[in-house]
């Protein structure tokens, strides 16, 4: 039982890691980023390339991939999203616009990956050694992802809720119109949050590349999983994403062990639906409001 729980938590760590960037992007920058998973996969390819071609191990690779991802996110927001955000002040169509625009972005990134990396399944082995945690054999790479999720989650949560800077970030999510009144540069802050989200997506991608097979078409799977977790946790709530991710991991493992592996996905979606029916704004969401 303990070992099942641990296996589940470690799996959940991956989910949480993947979801946290999205909750920043959607919860704070208000960009429903359908290309999120593609960015993640792109980072996975980057890590793979660094490892297989230049022999740079993925952990060091983070040092290259993350800043690059941050820069990309910064650029994407500046070039693509900012005009939409500005426009939406008049039209109020940011949600629809961002869905459509990032849907386009999804195709672009996917297309670039198809052209450069092909459509084949890619995977490599790194840190695929068992580590005994309280009786459960856990792969070191997954454990690392779990640790990273917890560290990122806790740090960001602390920063967002306990510091002035974090509060400014949340403020733009709550009421971007009023933010300038307290000296917040909404554009810059939203852009920063978006870039940070992109960076988290990339860190998820690098981690996942160490133990999961991926290919250029797989991004959507991650986007949707991340969305489910983000929504289940409560929009824009990092702690929510972390806990929802872990919860899904544990439930999936429990169902696979004690019920039927055929029902794991059914169980996670079921859990998700039940949570929403019980708390329409997610586990940690503020009461519903559009």
């Amino acid at each position, binding site marked *: 039982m303990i070992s099942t729980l641990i296996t589940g938590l470690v799996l959940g760590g991956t989910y949480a890691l993947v979801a946290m960037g999205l909750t920043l992007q959607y919860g704070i920058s208000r960009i429903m980023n359908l290309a999120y998973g593609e960015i993640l996969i792109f980072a996975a390819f980057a890590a793979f390339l660094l490892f297989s071609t230049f022999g740079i191990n993925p952990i060091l690779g983070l040092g290259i991939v993350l800043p690059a991802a941050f820069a990309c996110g910064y650029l994407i927001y500046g070039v693509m999203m900012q005009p939409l955000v500005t426009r939406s002040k008049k*039209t109020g169509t940011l949600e629809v616009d961002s869905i459509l*625009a990032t849907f386009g972005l999804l195709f672009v990134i996917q297309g670039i990956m198809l052209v450069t990396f092909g459509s084949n399944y890619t995977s490599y082995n790194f840190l695929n050694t068992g580590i005994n945690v309280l009786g459960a054999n856990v792969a070191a790479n997954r454990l690392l992802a779990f640790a990273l999720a917890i560290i990122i989650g806790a740090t960001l949560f602390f920063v967002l809720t306990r510091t002035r800077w974090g509060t400014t970030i949340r403020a733009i999510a709550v009421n971007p119109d009023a933010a300038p009144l307290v000296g917040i540069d909404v554009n810059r802050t939203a852009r920063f949050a978006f870039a940070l989200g992109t960076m988290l997506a990339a860190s998820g991608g690098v981690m996942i590349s160490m133990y999961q097979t991926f290919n250029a078409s797989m991004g959507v799977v991650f986007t949707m999983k991340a969305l489910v977790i983000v929504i289940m946790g409560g929009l824009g709530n990092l702690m929510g994403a972390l806990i929802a991710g872990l919860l899904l991991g544990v439930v999936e493992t429990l169902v696979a062990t004690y019920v039927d592996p055929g029902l794991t996905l*059914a169980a996670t979606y079921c859990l998700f639906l039940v949570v929403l029916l019980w708390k329409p704004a997610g586990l940690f969401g503020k009461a519903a409001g559009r």
Partner: protein
Amino acid sequence: MTRTILGLMLAILGLAALAWMPTQLGAYGVGLLLGMTGYVALASAWALFSGPTRYVSLATVAFFGIGAYTVAVLSETLPYWAVLLVAAVIGLAVALIVGLATLRLAGVYFVIFTFGLAELIRQLVTWYEVNVTGTLGRYIFLPITAEQIYWQLLAVAAGTIAIGWLISRSRLGLALKVIGDDETVAGHTGINIAGVKLALFAVSATIITLVGAIQAPRWTYVEPAIVFNPTISFLTLIMALLGGANRLWGPALGAIPLFLLFEWLSANFPNHYSIILGLLFIAIVFVVPRGVLAGIEDGWARLKRRGEAA
């Protein structure tokens, strides 16, 4: 009044022309028409509910798949019309249950809920087939030609747009707009929000189910991964939004060009399809901000103003 009658006659004429088209086209042309009409029907049905209420649903494929799967299961045992009927009834029943359950959700919570729902249904169907019937794929050997499928879809699409037209002129249409603007106000003005939403969701879902059922015989082989493919939900949504989900002809005007664009790109640029499509998409969002139809209207208004000025 005369304008309405004129419009009606034009619509009937147009419909007749569309129905006659397959006789002039080869199999590929019919296939193209069929696919296009299918998406026009899906996008229009989707917009019936999601357009005015702004409840963006990703459950399209859940109902589409239910329709297709019903046909796959029953095609050997029941006459075709009865199969369609059963499919519609199942779709309606599921829609009512889902509708009742989701009434409390709003915004993106609803969006992702519906996505989760579609996935759950797919997982459950898969699990059922694997564990209970012990097969996964099912075969549909119905003697239905592509032309026949096209005609049925055409009827459904026309019906959907007609329903949309009727609703937009009725109190129900106004109720939907009010709900889309402000649910609190809607409640206080005496609108039965739950009832309206449920009714519309059910109508929309039933039509989508029918589209799935009608299209199924085209594939011969049906399995959950094929008929519950989430891409269908996304495409429907994108088409409707692009055309303008709040207008009667918006979804159709989004579906047709987009469908043809997909087709043209995949035929001419099979290797750079994604990149070009993506860039086009982004460009469209920037150039026609409020949907194609609104864009056309804006352009038309500008032309007219210029004409008046001249």
